């Protein structure tokens, strides 16, 4: 195993790099993750320590190693139907509620921070089995800051261990085919989801407005200023009455433009405005989105 002498300075440099490139912070208490998550990258590049990695990045700051290091430090944890109760709430309450309020039978969903795609595909499965959405045009846009995660999500191929975490066996039989030791998601589901690499802080390409947004276990990686910026992006892209689903323990204040659902944990509703949402107004006037400030 690669020996990794702890280097606080190198870990600090790498944490700064992560923050500059993605807006995400790693507290001192969570710096241990840096060594663990970068170990495979060090091995792949024949490097021995975090100091070696920092020096290699400094030698070629425009090279691919920097992006690879940032990607490796991101948390890619995901599973099908993660937090089952949330998906049950989406299926039994949120989707029927949205179906009863949207006249044009078009539903637009955004998975912000979709990691390796399990959440987006889980939503697609839920949509497919929701009677109230039969005959509807449903699109799911899914974004994540990690290029590696998005590549895996687009491929839609998962290991046996991935398949066993949260995916009901009935859904496996319906939507997956074995390919060697892995499982391939059906084209019918893949065609429902558009994956793209995108940072929620600079979500230029996720156009919206959306009726349902999932942004789970993302906000807590941001310091306060970036968290507020992320909330603004979510509010900007939410149609009035849209539902926003956060991770367990993540909360929003009323000033964000969302109101907590009294009957549904972790779920918020975009407050109704007197007119169309900001994004709709912008689209109507053909005005471009304002430029985003640099992260650093």
């Amino acid at each position, binding site marked *: 195993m690669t020996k990794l002498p702890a280097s606080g300075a190198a870990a600090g440099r790498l944490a700064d790099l992560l923050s500059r490139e993605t807006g995400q912070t790693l507290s001192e208490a969570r710096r241990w993750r840096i060594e663990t998550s970068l170990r495979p990258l060090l091995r792949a590049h024949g490097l021995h320590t975090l100091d070696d990695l920092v020096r290699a990045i400094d030698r070629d700051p425009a090279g691919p190693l920097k992006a690879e290091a940032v990607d490796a430090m991101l948390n890619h944890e995901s599973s099908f139907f993660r937090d089952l109760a949330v998906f049950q709430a989406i299926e039994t309450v949120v989707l029927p509620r949205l179906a009863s309020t949207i006249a044009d039978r078009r539903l637009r969903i955004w998975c912000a921070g979709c990691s390796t795609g399990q959440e987006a595909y889980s939503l697609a499965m839920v949509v497919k089995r929701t009677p109230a959405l039969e005959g509807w045009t449903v699109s799911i846009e899914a974004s994540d800051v990690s290029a590696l995660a998005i590549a895996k999500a687009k491929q839609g191929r998962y290991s046996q*261990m991935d398949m066993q*975490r*949260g995916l*009901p066996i009935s859904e496996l*039989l319906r939507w997956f*085919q074995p390919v060697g030791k892995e499982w391939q998601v059906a084209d019918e589901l893949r065609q429902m989801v558009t994956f793209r690499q995108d940072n929620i802080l600079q979500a230029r390409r996720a156009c919206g407005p959306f009726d349902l947004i999932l942004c789970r276990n993302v906000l807590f990686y941001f310091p306060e200023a970036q968290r507020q910026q992320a909330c603004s992006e979510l509010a900007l892209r939410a149609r009035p009455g849209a539902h926003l689903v956060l991770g367990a323990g993540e909360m929003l204040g009323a000033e964000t433009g969302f109101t907590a659902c009294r009957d549904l944990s972790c779920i918020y509703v975009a407050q109704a405005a007197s007119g169309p949402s900001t994004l709709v107004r912008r689209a109507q006037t053909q005005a471009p989105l304002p430029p985003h400030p640099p992260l650093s």
Partner: protein
Amino acid sequence: MPNCLIVDDSKVIRKVARHILESLDLDVHEAQDGREALEMCEDQVPDVVLLDWNMPIMSGLEFLKELSRRNFAHPPKVIFCTTENGVDHIRAAVDAGADEYVMKPFDRDTLESKLQIVGVL
């Protein structure tokens, strides 16, 4: 506390599964073959059965069919836990009434997730 019956002829698998299930606050019982498991079900119907496929005396599928014939008022949820990972086997198990299917090897997250899906956790 929900109770789980592990049906597996491998002592090692039973030990590993017991360790995980007890950490999930389940009351765990063990049977090393289908006949013993059916006798235990007659005494006390468990909430969930973790069932191997290939066993002596009767296979997991034969056990499941026998269990269905018992017509218990509150039949247990049945989760297959097997190295038989092909689609044909999975479909046969589901057609025979299995509620879930675990492909070995498994870990704590897998068992916890399957127990949540069948409503035991």
